[in-house]
């Protein structure tokens, strides 16, 4: 397989050398893509065959039923309010958690005394299974979106906080001293040195936080809600509707993949702009 069809690629091949083009990643990735599709199809066929024959279809449903259900949701549009509710809660929870995490990480990272005082409390909070806070959030914020946002935020905040904190601590003290000698104010040191220097760390936290925001939102919906994909799973389950549960899970998985892809695209952008260094 050759990639010698566009002028732009010629350059890249020449730099990497001809041997690299011979074993081009395109060739192997096409093959891997092929196997991936085969595996998926095989899995669905086996599922379809097993269901109702070896295992009760009441328990595992079957792919055709699930596809029917998905089609019904999509054609009537009944799925969208649920998708929207989950996306909304995930997004708000992520933004709030990320903002608090970055702010907290910067603040404690810059005050060693305070961070030492708060240390045991922070770790106790981290060790707490945050999902167990859901009933409390429902009590505080009610049954609508706010309690889901709170749960998503609380799952995100610590991940972002820890990474931001580490990023701030990682800043070279010599660079800080250098800035001070250049007459930089505390604010200038923060904005021109500490934040840019910690950016790559902060991004690790943000990236890890995205799936947790989704988890938080969905668990909130599972526990008490009248909308959202988590609610859909919970409702279908309580109606013994396996096809409904699986269909909702498919939508959740698709959503997770879309979020992941958005994060990857953003990271590539930022790396190109050199905002994320190293």
């Amino acid at each position: 397989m050759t990639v010698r069809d566009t002028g732009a690629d010629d350059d890249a091949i020449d730099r990497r050398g001809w041997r690299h083009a011979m074993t081009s990643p395109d060739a192997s990735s096409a093959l891997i893509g092929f196997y991936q599709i085969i595996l998926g199809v095989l899995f669905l066929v086996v599922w379809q065959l097993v269901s109702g024959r070896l295992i009760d279809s009441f328990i595992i449903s079957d792919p055709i039923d699930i596809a029917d259900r998905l089609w019904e949701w999509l054609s009537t549009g009944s799925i969208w309010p649920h998708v929207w509710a989950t996306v909304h809660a995930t997004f708000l929870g992520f933004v709030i958690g990320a903002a608090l995490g970055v702010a907290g990480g910067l603040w404690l990272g810059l005050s060693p005394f305070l961070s030492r005082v708060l240390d045991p409390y922070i770790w106790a909070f981290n060790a707490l299974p945050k999902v167990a806070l859901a009933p409390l959030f429902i009590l505080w914020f009610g049954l609508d979106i706010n309690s889901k946002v709170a749960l998503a935020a609380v799952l995100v905040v610590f991940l972002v906080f820890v990474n931001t904190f580490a990023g701030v601590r990682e800043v070279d003290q010599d660079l800080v001293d250098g800035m001070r000698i250049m007459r930089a104010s505390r604010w200038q040191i923060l904005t021109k040195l500490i934040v840019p220097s910690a950016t790559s760390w902060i991004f690790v936290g943000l990236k890890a936080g995205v799936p947790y925001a989704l988890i938080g939102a969905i668990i909130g919906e599972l526990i008490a809600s009248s909308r959202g994909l988590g609610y859909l799973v919970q409702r279908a389950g309580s109606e013994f509707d396996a096809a409904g549960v699986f269909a909702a899970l498919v939508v959740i998985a698709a959503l997770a993949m879309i979020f992941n892809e958005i994060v990857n695209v953003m990271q590539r952008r930022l790396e190109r702009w050199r905002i994320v260094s190293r």
Partner: protein
Amino acid sequence: MIELRSIQKTFRRRRDEVHAVDGVDLSIAPRSIVALIGPSGCGKSTLLNMIAGLYHPDKGRVVYEGKAVREVNTNVGYMTQKDNLLPWRTVIENIALPLEIAGIATERRLAEASAMIAHVGLAGFETKYPSELSGGMRKRACLARMLVYQPQALLLDEPFAALDAQLRIAMHDLLLRLWAEKQQTILLVTHDLVEAITLADRVVVFTRRPARVAFEQAIDLPRPRDVQHVRFTPRFEELYNAIWEQLRLEYAEEKL
């Protein structure tokens, strides 16, 4: 004028006490170049840090232009062993940083930074990132960044130690040419006796830790000096041998 008056500094780490500096008295005349020489870890860098106001002496006083240094001394430029360029900024953005901090408008600071870049021979590398430069180029960039805001005194902590011999000579030449224009006070910490004699008006030798002034030697080589050839002159050899002889005595004595 930079004055160190009976400076004492002890670092404590847990139970260990390290007497870094013990009773250093030193005055550095304005517009002179003074080289500080001594064994590794003897506290020379600590002295520079104290002049920069980053550390404070336990006893004694650092006086800069008649005023005691109590906070960070923003009249000096400090160039450390490591090149402290910001990796996410291009060469010109790094060099313009001190001007940016001072709140100078973008256009003017880029113009001034460009002029300084040309001065240190980095023209054409303005938009490169530090990771794309060689060690010598990074040193030039650091030098340019330090000089661009025109500090009155330069503190150089083994600035050229990591460079090969050829590059070091080129940097010596650059430094002396820049100094001839602006006549800053320069305090240079080095391990390299040849470097010290080539550049300085005065070489101050320190003892092992805790650092005290062991002896000093005035360097009366005429200026401007040809850094490439000055080391082969008879006077240079005399000075070199004189200092070397004393160094030998000094450190032999310490061993006992």
